[in-house]
């Protein structure tokens, strides 16, 4: 019956509070295919919608578009990198900042202290050999916060000078660069303590221009016109330090940053996607994805229900010229699956794009790149070989959801 004990009762209460939250969460079934992967196919009335008639334009729309679009339901800043350490061993990493609006703009609460209309989630992963380390963070913000001072908000993204953060996980424009610069960024993210500490501090230098996908930045995601605003910076040259198992090593390589926002990314019938970003050794880049279900329902009623796959892509020259690829230009065939986290995930693919004379095999050297995050998915580095000759053509990243 010490005073101390009484005082700590309060802390107990908190712990209980959390238990309750876990408990309630368990009651909610995982999202079903009817609303798409992770609820991304939900109806989103009251939000702004990505439309083909709102093209992104250079240079007028930038750097503002790098910032958050809180009137849209979802958004992300998504970096993947294929690196090598000093010993020449390949190493992959990912850093993603997700934003989700809790409610449409009209229903936002007044910006009282702690009140939030935006939920933030960040993922980081480092992969080398069999090792695959994953961490996740969450945060809240109000879209009317004064973001000029980062300490006013736990998470946020401002365009000029560019700064995207959730806690100490930050992607930030270099201080010496101009305030509108998006070509020189620093990425910092660490997790864990001591032996189990991992993370990175990387310098990102753009060696090419931004690339708009689809029709001037509107990327259609389903046959019914559903889509998102989507641009990338695929030309990052990356140098920096990666800490793994408490040891820090110097790394360098290539990176790819995706920016995408939408209010209804998927058709309600779509169950997930397979998304590829590929750096060819000759300097060309390829983005291709397929959304399973929700394609052009040319078949019977059953097809209407289930939907067919919808594919899209962008062929990027070393200079940054982009050619959109339509759904019938892309042929994607899973060749082999691996058992990962109790599911069968395709880890070898054949990708054919006859219009640019591409017929390649894409394989994940390590299948265990499962992201054990709140919304689990597969994300890992891949190697690309010519299908006919077997010659190595490049490397990239593969993301697969909804398995």
């Amino acid at each position, binding site marked *: 019956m*010490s005073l101390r*004990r009484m005082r700590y009762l309060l*802390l107990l209460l*908190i712990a*209980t*509070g959390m238990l309750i939250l876990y408990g309630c969460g368990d009651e*909610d079934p995982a999202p079903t295919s009817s609303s798409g992967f992770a609820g991304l196919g939900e109806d989103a009335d009251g939000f702004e919608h990505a439309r083909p008639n709102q093209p992104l334009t250079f240079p007028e729309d930038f750097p503002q578009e790098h910032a958050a679009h809180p009137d849209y339901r979802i958004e992300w800043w998504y970096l993947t990198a294929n690196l090598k350490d000093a010993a020449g061993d390949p190493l992959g990493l990912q850093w993603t900042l997700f934003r989700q609006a809790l409610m449409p703009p009209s229903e936002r609460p007044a910006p009282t202290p702690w009140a939030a209309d935006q939920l933030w989630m960040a993922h980081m992963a480092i992969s080398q050999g069999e090792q695959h380390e994953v961490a996740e963070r969450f945060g809240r913000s109000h879209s009317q916060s004064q973001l000029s001072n980062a300490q006013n908000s736990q998470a946020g993204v401002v365009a000029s000078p560019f700064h995207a953060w959730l806690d100490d996980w930050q992607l930030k424009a270099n201080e010496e660069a101009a305030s509108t610069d998006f070509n020189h960024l620093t990425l910092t993210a660490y997790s864990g303590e001591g032996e189990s500490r991992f993370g990175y501090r990387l310098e990102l230098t753009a060696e090419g221009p931004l690339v708009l996908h689809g029709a001037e930045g509107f990327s259609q995601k389903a046959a019914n016109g559903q889509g998102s605003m989507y641009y990338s910076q695929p030309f990052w040259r990356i140098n920096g330090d990666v800490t793994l198992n408490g040891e820090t090593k110097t790394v360098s390589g290539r990176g790819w940053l995706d920016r995408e926002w939408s209010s209804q990314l998927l058709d309600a019938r779509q169950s997930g996607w397979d998304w590829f970003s590929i750096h060819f050794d000759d300097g060309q880049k390829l983005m291709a994805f397929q959304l399973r279900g929700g394609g052009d329902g040319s078949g019977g009623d059953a097809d209407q229900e289930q939907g067919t796959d919808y594919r899209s892509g962008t062929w990027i020259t070393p200079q940054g010229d982009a050619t959109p690829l339509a759904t019938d230009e892309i042929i994607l065939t899973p060749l082999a699956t691996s058992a990962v986290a109790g599911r069968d995930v395709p880890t070898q693919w054949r990708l054919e794009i006859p219009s640019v004379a591409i017929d390649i095999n894409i394989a994940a050297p390590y299948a265990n790149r499962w992201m054990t995050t*709140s919304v689990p998915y597969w994300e890992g580095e891949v190697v690309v070989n010519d299908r006919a000759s077997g010659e190595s053509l490049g490397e990239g990243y593969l993301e697969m959801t909804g398995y």
Partner: protein
Amino acid sequence: MTRVLATLLSHYRRHPGQLIMLLLGLWVASALWSGIQAINATARDSYDRADAMFDTQLDQLERRDGTPFSRTEYHSLRQAGLPVSPMLEGEVVTQDGTRLTLIGIDPLTLSSDNALAQVNTSTSLSDFLSPPWQTRVAPDALAALGIEREKASGATPTLKDGKTLPPLVLAPALPPDTLIMDIAAAARLLESGDEITRIVAAPGALSETPTGLTLTRATTLASPGQLTESFHLNLTALGLLAWVVGLFIVQAALGLALEQRLGMLRTLRVLGVSGRRLVIALSLELILLGLIGALAGIASGVWLARLLLPDVAATLGSLYGAGVGQELNLPWHYWVGGLAVSLSGLLLAGSGVLWRAARLNMLELGQMQAWRSGYRRQLTLMGIGGAIALSIALALYAWLRFQPPGDGLVAGFGLIAALLLASALWLPPFLALVLRTLTHLVRRRPLIHWAMADMQLQLPRLSLAMMALLIALATNLGVGSMVGGFRLTFLDWLDQRLVAPLYLNAPTEQYADIDVWLADRPEVFERLLTRRSDATLQAATTPEGSRALGTPIELYGITPGKSLTPHWPLLATQQDRASAWAAFGDGAIFVNEQLATAENLAPGNRLTLSAPGANETLTIAAIYPDYGNPSGQVLVASPQLAARFNAPPSSMGLVLNDDANVDALRAALRERFVLGSDALSDQAGIKRIATEIFERTFTITRALNVLTLAVAALALFASLLAQARSRRQQLAPLWALGVPRTQLAQLNLAQLGGAALVTGLLAVPLGIVITWGLVAIINVAAFGWRLPLYLFPWEMAVTLATAVGVALLAAALPTLRFWRASPRALLAEEANQ
């Protein structure tokens, strides 16, 4: 078979009272058992929850000057990479004036790993986070909010200040009187602006303390587990004993049912129903009645638990800082288990009845002759059985003496059970012996002589009920003394630990300044600085030699001042208290009982203790009791602890002069040293609350004890009723021979009262032995510390009087019926025999 069963049951159509009696017996027995079980199960569930909460307890960051944090500072800490979470605490007042604790949390940062899984997928998390938000509340708090349970979900109760709570969501696992909501909603209700009450982190998540802040580790918290467990164990013991008493009553009730149908059974046998079929039919009846009785018993046991639970919940809740819900939370296996226990008890008790039915003599010829020798044989068997049980008890005791402390809990329970069994088995032979002797002595007083001789005749039928009474009384005394002793011990312990009326909890580096400042304050009589540090017990040197140990222990520094030493209890010293304290002041150490028992230490032994940068060998001057502390503790004088082990101050007790102005001192201290509001606490208040709690514990024990006794009384009553008819047949001739009925009735009461008195007198030493077993064997086996043995003579006298009263009460109805029976009825029975 159906016909046999129907014939058996038809008896009850003629005598519904007997059926009611039988069912009542089964019902009360299983009700008591399941009631205690229900309380226990609910309480255990709550403790498990509480323990789990302690496990997931949080580290806490405070600013050295005690001022609150702001939201931007919290963001800075996050952006510096610290995995901290904000928390808002406050009070809201409901319309009926109840104060509820309101806690605002940020589920996004408070949780670890998988908790966060809810962010994208769970609509409930977004409901928690966004307007109109949610109020998570345990059903216990609904009454204070003036809301019925059915209408609770989604209700938005209005508070006294006119604000409305966010829609309610019921969360039964929450502690009572606590509201949990998102920090944004809490900030609105509390109007706290950007302020944060505290900043917390998962245990161990912070590798080092940020500059300017103090870190309080969750690991330094003592879990209430052991005190809780101890109390629990006692409840379990009580439940077990209640069940044994219940078995006796079931046996008595079944005996009644058989007794009254012996004639019918005989007739059935004569009519050609085989013994086997009769036994099967009786078993079927037993199971049928057992199911009805047990189900009713379990249901009303739950009701009983509900009745007692507000008290139990309040007691345990405030005592251990763990909320016991007022909602009964019983898992399915409790119901199945309760039924199984009741039924198996019934079959155990009924097997004797079935045995008798199977061997039923068709023609009653020679039965009387057989009876007397049969009973003698039974007494001999009981004597032998008792001797065996006692040898088992002694063997267990001997074995336990060689067990390391903390082991042998089951054996401890076995020991007590064996003792009880031995006493119960020896009771009838003992009573028979007493009666034979007395019968011999009062030969010249014909009526008393008859009464004694007659009592011998009654004994076979009464012995079971008397055994039940003995066990119930002994248990009563045992548990009563144990709880009473627990209470006194606890009050002592409070005195020991809460000597000072004011208790100061300041940032570590301020103590030196505060101490200097307080030394000049005239109203401060004594300053009792405590220090705390962790250390390793490297070796112990005893007269037998030196042992290497390596046990982690806790170093606790106290100031052996005038106010403290008289209250601090010591269990063993080298010479006497005074010299022990003198030695303590000079650098000797005290060890707590747990450590002494675990490492087999005695005063005079020397311990080698190592702490970072220190390695000291010190002499044990005394052993002191340290109730409820799970770990070994070494007590060192505060200055010595600072000098030798560099232990930081952890608190300071302030003993004030009688005329001191507490509020003025408090204000001055807070102003001078910029202390937080909770840096100074009033120990007297804590002491008062703790004492009140124990009084409530007493109430529960009393209630349960009364129930146990009631069950025993019912057993006695059933036995008496079972033989009421044959009793009248024995009394009628005496009446015919010229003994007035009033006198016979009085004799009848005196017989039972006397038997109960003897039983009660036997129960007193047995109760003491049980108390001793509980505090000195079971508690040590379970926790490694011994509760002192306290005896309460007044309570014993009351119990004794209760025993006699219970017996007289049970005898009253049959006696009254005899006394009021018309002469013709008596003679008619006589003629009908």
